[in-house]
């Protein structure tokens, strides 16, 4: 019996549509990679000086290029002599438009700033140690100074830089280290709190509790996973943050510790579910053999069950860290968001996701700040990808070993 042609065609079409939908997740992951990197990578091809502005020095100054870190330190008055950055022995005099009035009167500049370009030009010409941060449009063809180019943002500076001042003028600082360390601190704190707790609950549910109690506890723990992160953040903000502040007698309660506690609660359901599932795979025969040799139930658990399911427990811990690393809103609300390298759990910290959430709204599209935030997104994506692939690897090896 052969099927009529149009029916065969229909089946083929449907199969095509299904295959197309089947590939949607792969397509989505691919698109996410493309768009994150497309928006972010431009950062390394541009100078960190605010858009539309330039740095100018006296034409007799031998310095041609300045590192962006050095620019910041010059304008922060930390470097005060050109000698320390391969120049002549001359005091550095910084100049921004704000200081204009200490050199020229309002009449000289003109009511509508019509003489601004001329003023800047003669100023740069007359002071030998000057470095001026001025708008590009005021640099005319007969400008008597010299423009210095800051170095482009380099990858090394980005990943090892210790300062995150994305909107600093004249030169923004994109050092991702404090954010990366902040993320790791908060996540590690969270996993230290939630792993023992989660493991205890998993063992209790799988081996100790009777089925009736388990049937009550299990859905409650699943509900814990369903609570939105913004609610956890709000709860942390109004309950845990004041609590930490009063217990440790701190000026502010928004600390890494508050973030770790909230993240620990949020990671618990993941850890419990996966660890419990893996504990349950222990063959009954092994447990019974142990009990038959006279071991107590507790001895059986820590000598047989836990060693047997250790890879599943590892996977649970790693996934818990993954959950903590990517969490945004709760952390944003309770950690205080200070972009400094953390030294203790009782300090405010700032994580990568919280930085993106807090700053993307203020950055202008396509600007260096915007691009830097997309690079942060790339870092986050790669981190979670590594975590997922590790878990995938552990569980697939597990399946093979147990077959």
């Amino acid at each position, binding site marked *: 019996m052969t099927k009529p042609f149009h029916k065969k065609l229909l089946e083929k079409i449907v199969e095509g549509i299904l295959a197309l939908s089947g590939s949607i*997740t792969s397509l*989505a*992951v691919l698109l996410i990679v493309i768009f*994150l990197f497309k928006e972010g990578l431009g950062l390394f091809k541009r100078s960190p000086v605010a858009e539309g502005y330039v740095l100018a020095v006296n034409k007799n100054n031998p310095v041609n290029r300045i590192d962006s870190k050095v620019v910041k330190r010059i304008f922060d008055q930390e470097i005060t002599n050109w000698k320390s950055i391969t120049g002549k022995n001359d005091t550095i005099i910084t100049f921004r438009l704000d200081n204009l009035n200490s050199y020229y009167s309002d009449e000289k500049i003109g009511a509508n700033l019509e003489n601004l370009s001329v003023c800047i030009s003669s100023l740069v010409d007359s002071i030998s140690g000057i470095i001026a941060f001025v708008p590009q449009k005021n640099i005319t063809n007969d400008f008597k100074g010299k423009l210095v180019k800051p170095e482009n943002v380099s990858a090394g500076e980005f990943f090892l830089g210790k300062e995150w001042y994305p909107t600093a003028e004249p030169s923004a600082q994109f050092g991702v280290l404090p954010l990366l360390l902040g993320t790791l601190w908060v996540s590690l704190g969270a996993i230290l709190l939630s792993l023992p707790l989660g493991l205890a609950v998993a063992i209790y*549910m799988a081996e100790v*509790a009777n089925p009736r109690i388990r049937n009550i506890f299990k859905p409650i*723990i699943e509900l814990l996973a369903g609570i939105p992160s*913004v609610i956890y953040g709000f709860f942390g903000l109004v309950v845990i943050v004041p609590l930490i502040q009063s217990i440790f007698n701190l000026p502010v309660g928004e600390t890494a510790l508050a973030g770790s506690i909230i993240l620990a609660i949020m990671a618990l359901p993941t850890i419990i579910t996966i660890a419990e599932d893996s504990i349950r795979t222990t063959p009954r025969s092994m447990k019974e053999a142990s009990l038959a040799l006279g071991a107590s139930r507790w001895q059986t658990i820590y000598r047989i069950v836990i060693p047997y399911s250790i890879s599943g427990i590892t996977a649970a811990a790693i996934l818990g860290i*993954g959950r903590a690393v990517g969490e945004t809103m709760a952390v944003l609300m309770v950690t205080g968001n200070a972009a400094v390298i953390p030294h203790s759990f009782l300090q405010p910290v700032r994580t990568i996701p919280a930085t993106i959430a807090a700053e993307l709204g203020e950055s202008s599209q396509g600007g260096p700040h915007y691009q830097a935030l997309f690079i942060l997104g790339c870092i986050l994506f790669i981190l*979670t990808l590594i975590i997922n692939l590790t878990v995938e690897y552990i569980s697939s090896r597990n399946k093979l070993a147990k077959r």
Partner: protein
Amino acid sequence: MISEKRRKIERSKRLSERVAFGIFRVMSLLVVGILFVILGFLVIKGFSVISWDFITKMPEDGMTKGGIYPAIIGTLYLIAGSMLFSFPIGVLSGIYINEYASNGWVVKFIRLMTNNLAGIPSIVFGLFGMSLFVNTLGFGDSIIAGSLTLGLMTLPVVIRTTEEALKSVDNSFRHGSYALGASKLQTIRRVTLPIAYPNIITGLILSIGRVSGETAPILFTVAAYFLPRLPHGIFDQVMALPYHLYVLATSGTNIEESRPMAYGTALVLIMIVLFLNLMANALRRYFSKKVKMN
């Protein structure tokens, strides 16, 4: 002598077991207690705020008075929009993985990608949504951009539950249908899907729960800080419950005075989410019993 020693060992064995199990029990109660602490706290603080006016009025006086009506409506729009996108595609994708893709690396690869997509942090979806939907496709901050971003994020949930649901359909049903001369497509439409359908619906409900609580993906794709009117179309911004709670809690014009509003909003949000989760749970249980009885 020997029996004395034995008894000692037995006693210490039993004692350590009792201590260990006692600790486990206390810790489990602690974890389960967390839910009730959070829930109880929000109910006590938020219950007096909630009234008919609270859920049907616009926010007033710098969000310190009035209600959260536009945020509720906004969240409903986002739920509808994201589900219109992710539910059909997710179900089709699940059908493909379980019924069509011949076992092997294709299935493995798709599953790996689905797991990866599920593991991507929500803020990265926000970045992606902003880059693709808001800027590149030019939707601007709009319901459609937010819905697509949220839909993409919930795809793995829908795909997985569909896959699980189809897997739980016994092969004898499929073979019976083939034996009667039905084609593959007919079998899926008339036999497999109707049996798996209730479990697929649980996936839908779970993803609605997820969508209604997510904040990070909508920050830069749709959410409006303050917009005391209903949206004019799918290219308009909306307020949404989770973002509104964030605004009230951290960056309102008067944080102290808007605290009661924040408690009320949190309570409404958590009630919606918990209700959806409980419903999914109940459905799953109800139907798993029914299937067993057959």
